[in-house]
């Protein structure tokens, strides 16, 4: 089984932008891995002039929101650091039963690494997730900077989304057979940095060792 690892370009975000950025990226990835019957929902980003697509499953949306919230909480505790979120897709395979092993094993066949560089907010309302600081920032220069940053981030985010589409199209052979009719056809897991800074990286290394070497880095 091929194991594909896709590493997306790093995005420089402010705290209040994390949520929307991750929503766009995660939902776009999951939508392409939702091979069950999908009722797509077009969602306009609250911050960016971008419309992304959800697969229309409340459970999926809830799970993603929870992970995003956890990630934001981690970022707030560890400001000004690069951070990474990983979404992994698995395949459940039956294993020969033995008294000391499980009957099934979970094989990771794809991982997406989302890299964010969280910068400190340049505006007093930077902690807000939804308010646009442009409206309240008194400094014209700051407004211009914010505007430039937003435009730059939006452009980069759009590029990342296109990159996801490109990767999804280029790499299809590693996708395991669909074994169920769930909306998201494969078990998936979203990994965020744990409370200790180093454990996330170690965890990733462990996972990569367990699942074999990445066959593709981008």
């Amino acid at each position, binding site marked *: 089984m091929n194991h594909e690892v896709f590493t997306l370009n790093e995005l420089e975000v402010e705290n209040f932008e994390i949520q929307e950025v991750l929503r766009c990226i995660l939902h*776009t990835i999951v*939508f*392409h891995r*939702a*091979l*069950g*019957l*999908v*009722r*797509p*929902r*077009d*969602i*306009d980003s609250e911050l960016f*002039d*971008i*419309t*992304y*697509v*959800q697969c*229309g499953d409340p459970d999926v949306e809830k799970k993603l929101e929870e992970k995003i919230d956890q990630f934001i909480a981690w970022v707030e505790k560890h400001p000004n650091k690069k951070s990474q979120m990983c979404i992994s897709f698995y395949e459940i395979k039956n294993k020969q039963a033995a008294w000391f092993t499980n009957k099934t094993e979970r094989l990771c066949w794809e991982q997406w690494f989302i890299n964010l560089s969280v910068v400190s907010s340049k505006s007093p309302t930077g902690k807000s997730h939804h308010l646009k600081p442009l409206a309240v920032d008194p400094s014209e220069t700051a407004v211009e900077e914010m505007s430039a940053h937003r435009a730059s981030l939006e452009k980069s985010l*759009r590029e990342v*989304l*296109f990159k996801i*589409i490109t990767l*999804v*199209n*280029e790499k*299809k*052979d590693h*996708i395991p*057979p*669909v*074994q*169920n*009719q769930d909306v998201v*056809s494969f078990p998936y897991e979203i990994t965020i940095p744990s409370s200790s800074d180093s454990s996330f990286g170690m965890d990733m290394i462990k996972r990569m060792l367990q699942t074999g070497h990445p066959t593709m880095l981008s």
Partner: protein
Amino acid sequence: MASPSSSHFESARTEQIISEFFLKGLHVILESRVPFLCSETHRTEQGGLSSSSVSRVRKKDKWFMLAIGECSAASEILNVWHKNAMDPLVIDVVLVQEDSSKAQGSDKEIGSPMKLHSFSDTFTSAQSTSYWNVGEEHFNSSSKETSVKVLERWVMQYESLKSSTRDHLSSKGRGSLGFGETVSHSSDDPTASTRMYKRLILLLRSLYVTSRLLPAYKLFRKLNSSNQSYNFGISYRVSSFVEPFSRMEEREMTNFRFTPVDTAFGRLSLSVSYCTVLPHLNIEDSTSLLPPIIVDYVGSPAADPLKRFPCGSLPKSVDKGYQATSFPSQGIRSSYSSPFQRPHSWSSGLSRCGPPTYSPSPPLYPNYSIPYSTLSDSHASTSNVHGHRVPPCGHHNHDQSAPISYRPSSQKKGTSSEELWLTPPFSPSSSPSPTNSPSCNPLLNRPRFGSSPVSIPLGRNPGCVSPNNSDPNKLLLPPPSPKSKRPDYSNRDDSSRGHATHVSGSQESPSPSRGNSFRKNDALKSGETYIGSTSLQTNLGQKVFRDSREDSGRFSGLISSSSSPRFGFSRSSSRLSLQDDLDDYEFTCPFAVDDVDTIDSHTRLLAYIIKVPCARRAEMQHYMDTDMSVVHVSKVLTFKCVSKVFRTLP
């Protein structure tokens, strides 16, 4: 090694999947570009399906596991304009912009736009292969210049492999074409089509996401969500050839090519060229070009088509107790008597033949409803008669039942588990099985879209005898629907056509004609009508008369019209009344009326595709000349007749 029959079967199966991909791909594109064209998808504002429809899964939705409803406009466009599925399907999304404030030379500002009138010349030569829906009537007014610019060009193409190449690949078992994906298909590989289907699912997912990411989507959203009118609009052209861009256009375009999907018999490629930077658009209100959709719009001078459509030859037939028809005798007669004012490749009506929606807002009704209510003007009473929700009738029930192939219990020995979940919802009863298909290559004669999903699932149709039935593995993948099947209009699952056919009987009266006459009178009171010999202005859409006996889709007539945004119109009643009359004439083919209408923010058009046997056309002509008009219009009627349509008449 695959036997010839199984190979043929696989080929047919693959080709139906490809055909369905074309349809759904076109649906996704049009739905996200042309306002209100695919409104029958019954989405909420955020794009999700309305809650009441969530529980319903239609068979059409199961194709590629993407529940986006149905766009009858896309079906019709493909049926008419892309009959040969081996041809490329080129969808140009065009920006139509009013240039009133600019000198003609300044058109370069948005690229190298063509003057709208120049399309006539273009279509004279190309009308047989391309279809425009640009609402010319909107731009025909006064001295204002209108320019058109291609914003996006989507190209879908299925290239069939030559048999020698295919044999070579099959002998190698797993090979590569050197481009695209690895070819791992062979004709006897039972999972090949499943893998291919899965890849197409992914490709369609990508297409869906991409369509939302491209810049033109912003314009669509702006037009689709606002009641304002703008001095620009989005339209589209469907053709089967790629018209080269000018150098200037090429410089502005970015190309995005999706990874092609290879099958055992060919390769499906998809690409989009799009303008990275949208031209500067004036988003100020502009009522002259694209009138806003407002409640009392009927009385608006700006909406008066006569002012925008100076057709001197248009006679008026007002207040005669009945009003002009959507497919009036005058329309047909005019086709013989005089040259057309416009080529029918402009057939805006066809493009708007999709959703029967008269509301500027997203459809309020879930699946199986005809969302053409919400009219608030005085004519609304007419259309509101039909504006309520239409319960699924007849064949709809089939759509709601999950195909047998999706059930785990239907798994057969030797069938891979994936086939259980990723099986295309073929329609066995309608499929052109290799033994009964008149054509060796179904793609060369595209199955009529929309026909397959409504057919009875395999196993429930004892009358379905196809070679694959004997093969447990193939039981899950019935052969494609035949184009020779019964006209799909009569059994399409939840198309507006189907609704319209049953709406009166199911909701009001078992006798459609009674209800019709009542509604007709209502409608007749509701507006005045102008009937023209060559161009009849109407607030209905255009109508397309087609020969139903064959699949060629030749037009026997086409009358198109522009519409005023707010009006009440009883579409189904008119059609039904016509059908009643036609029944008297013993039409061999039940006057299959394909009425799919749509609304965009600027116009409301109805399109009727009427399938009339050639032999009966004369009778119909006579009927339409002498009998009362059939379709009611509230305000003004415009009929655009196209020469080609009538050249086909006997």
